[in-house]
């Protein structure tokens, strides 16, 4: 059982380890943003990069909510079962009523921002009250990746316990073997045959 546990623990830490990133590609146009608390999903850095011209900005959630008010957008609500972004479409004002790309670049609500061709951002310490916004022309794709430096919660205990059980088991076997030898001891001498001279 110890060997089995140790092997399971090792497998969970290596080949069966959970992915170190979650997220994936989403259609960015015209406006994509993260929902409440989503940015800090894994409490680890988040990387976002846009394929094409556009804008990527990080702002306070309440300010971004005010900025996006009335604008049709796609909201990332979390991570889906396939570990890709789970999204919701939110209707807004008539298309063309606002120019999200120009508007975003003009506004001063961003704590971090990047614009132009293939903009990208790395949010080193995402906070639950921050929102990430991506605005882009039609056809653009944004890659949004949450770092996820995690292991299976039982992997290390399984490995340690397995190794411990293995060691204890081996020690027990060695001790058992030694006891058997002691019990045999030197043993009685084989009887000599009678009438045979020494």
């Amino acid at each position, binding site marked *: 059982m110890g060997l089995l546990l140790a092997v399971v623990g090792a497998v969970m830490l290596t080949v069966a380890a959970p992915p170190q990133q979650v997220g994936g590609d989403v259609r960015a146009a015209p406006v994509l943003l993260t929902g409440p608390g989503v940015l800090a999903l*894994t409490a680890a850095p988040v990387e976002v990069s846009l394929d094409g011209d556009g804008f990527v900005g990080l702002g306070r959630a309440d300010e971004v909510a*005010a900025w996006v008010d009335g604008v049709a957008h796609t909201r990332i609500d979390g991570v889906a079962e396939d570990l890709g972004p789970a999204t919701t479409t939110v209707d807004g004002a008539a298309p063309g009523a606002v120019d999200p790309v120009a*508007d975003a670049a003009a*506004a001063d609500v961003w704590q971090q921002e990047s614009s132009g061709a293939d903009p990208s951002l790395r949010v080193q310490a995402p906070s639950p009250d921050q929102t990430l916004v991506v605005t882009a022309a039609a056809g653009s794709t944004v890659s949004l990746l949450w770092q996820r430096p995690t292991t299976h919660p*039982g992997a290390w205990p399984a490995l340690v316990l397995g190794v411990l059980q293995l060691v204890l088991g081996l020690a027990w076997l060695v001790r058992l073997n030694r006891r058997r030898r002691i019990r045999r001891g030197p043993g009685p001498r084989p009887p000599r045959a009678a009438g045979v001279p020494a």
Partner: protein
Amino acid sequence: MLGTALLSASLAGCAGAPAVDPAAQVAATVPPPSVLPEQAQQIRDEVAGRLQAARGGTNPSLLEQAAVGPAADLELLRAQVDGPQPDAETLDPPAAAVLVAPRTGTWPRWFVAVTDPSTDDELPSLELYDSDDVRSPYRLWGRMTLLPGAVLPAFPDAGRGAVALADGTGPDRVPQDGDDEQSDEDELLGVLAELSGRYASVLADGDASTAAAEFEPDAFVEGVLARAGAEQAAVAGVAETTVTHTPYGDDDVLYAVEGADGDVLAVTAVQTVTTMTVLPGAGVLQPDAEVRAAAGIEETDGTLTTRSVAALAFVVPAESGAIRLVAVGEGLVSAEAS
């Protein structure tokens, strides 16, 4: 048995998506500051870039996105007099030694940056930036030079923000008439509401003003009174001069924020209109170079009207004591001859 339980627990840990941090659900009860320090520096850099582009003539329309209020008036006259300056040196704004950002969850928003001059020859300046709404960029409203020896109130950490009392259009709450017992706060708001008008009265009449005792004597008032007297003396017998000082703008402009000790930093503006009417047959007026350039004339035998604006920063004590002028940014903004 234990191994089996651990195995089950380990595999169970693999299932499902990561959960949202519970801290995400915690709502802030106190409004955050209008800007954070890094954000304020970025905004100041961007405004300087837009001003530079507007001055250089590459994109004059950027002036609308770079300046507002007295700063815009001064820039417009600069553009009119000097024309495009494509070779103007790019000036990065010096780092802010003090950032005063009011706590707010709404717009309009503003903040003040007090610069740390890069050389000993420069005096620190106090810059005020204003944003109308969430989609509008911050614009420079005024740049004022701190008077020698000026002391500003202490403010809470920039990351926490300070309590705003007025967001550009007068006090947020005006005390109601008829209150027999005015609170200290009502009294303070009343003083703030009349600040620019009372100071304009002091600029006009000096010590003779009924408001003179409310303000500590300052070099700016002395300078304005001395200049008005000198101008009148210079044109005596040639022209009749009238000078009026009034609060700036259609509505009184006032930004005010409370310091840690209750003293208030209040920023407002006053405009001065000087009219010189040449007496019949008395000759002509030959204004100075700046006014000639602004009015587009060399001399006039009619009426010359000049308008200047002064952005002013005051410290209003929470309790007893006179109001202190701590920073001024003044300049001519228009001149017309008729």
